[in-house]
């Protein structure tokens, strides 16, 4: 396996990896393994999928148990809000890709521009989510509320519990993704991430797309199926 990674890094980033290129002759023996970084990132995403997967399975199980309660509860969610957030995240995924494309084409400023736009979309998503949750909480719908406990059937309690848990965990991932973007921004500015060494930005992109992917499934499951 070590042979593999050395080969991969050697060929994928010949110049930067061995330090013959741009900045520093001192880094001749500096070991870099882009293939390994990316592979590790995918393994991490695997664990993320299983983390959310468990919750999706819980959702599915209770959906079969309480089809009518799920139906009624989903009617109360705002489709427009959900659809807008879907478009926001899809577009942010595009701008993230464009940021990587721009960096690889050596236009640093364009790359930073797209990264800032992506961050902005992430923030927009969080603000939307804030208003959405606020409206629900205002109507007395939140885990453990009297409204849910005393007036709603068990299936609706479960639905809203999962709604808060899953969209909450997802939004937490959005926030983490935004923090990672701040680091990427700084690294591009300082040249740590550059057109020859962009794996960190690529991995940040993978993480961001995963966040998008999860939302692609959350949106229909919570907002549309009624």
């Amino acid at each position, binding site marked *: 396996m070590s*042979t*593999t990674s050395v*080969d*991969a890094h050697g*060929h*994928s*980033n010949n110049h930067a990896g061995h330090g013959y290129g741009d900045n520093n002759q001192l880094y001749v023996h500096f070991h870099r393994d882009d*293939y390994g970084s*990316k*592979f590790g990132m*995918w*393994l991490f*995403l*695997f664990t993320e*999928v*299983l983390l959310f*997967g468990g919750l999706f*399975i819980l959702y*599915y*199980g209770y959906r*079969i*148990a309480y089809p009518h309660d799920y139906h009624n509860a989903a009617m109360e969610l705002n*489709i427009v809000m959900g*659809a807008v957030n*879907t*478009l926001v995240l*899809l*577009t942010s*995924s*595009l701008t*993230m*890709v*464009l940021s*990587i*494309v721009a960096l*690889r*084409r050596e236009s640093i400023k364009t790359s930073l521009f797209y990264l800032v736009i992506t961050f902005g979309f992430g923030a927009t998503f969080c603000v939307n989510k804030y208003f959405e949750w606020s409206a629900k909480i205002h109507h007395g719908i939140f885990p453990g509320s009297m409204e849910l406990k005393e007036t709603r059937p068990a299936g609706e309690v479960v639905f809203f519990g999962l709604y808060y848990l899953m969209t909450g965990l997802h939004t937490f991932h959005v926030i983490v993704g935004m923090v990672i973007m701040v680091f990427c921004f700084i690294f591009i500015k300082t040249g740590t991430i550059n057109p020859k060494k962009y794996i960190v930005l*690529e991995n940040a*992109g*993978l993480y961001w*797309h*995963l966040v*998008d*992917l999860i939302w*692609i*499934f959350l*949106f*229909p*499951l919570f907002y*549309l*199926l*009624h």
Partner: protein
Amino acid sequence: MSGHNENTSVDKHEHVPSYGKNVMIWLALVALTALTVTVASVNLGNYTFFVAMLIASIKAMLVINIFMHIKYDDILMKSILIACGLVFAVIIIMYSFDLFNTYTG
């Protein structure tokens, strides 16, 4: 094994993605979102769930293949994804037997 990776790795890095293709994929994703919202207002009975999940899966495939670049990655990277999908599918299927037995049996 290492020779194979070496080659695909070179291929991958020579593939510099274009702006245009990614924008096209984004348009497709937006169109599919519009479609799934429209379909949701039509009563398809028992098929509603499957249609929604089908559209979501198509969107997911587009994101994974193009945005996440897996289409241009080598077989080892793809196998991670396949393993992940299989594990999840097996859990869902085995759970379904129990679930449908409990609530409809």
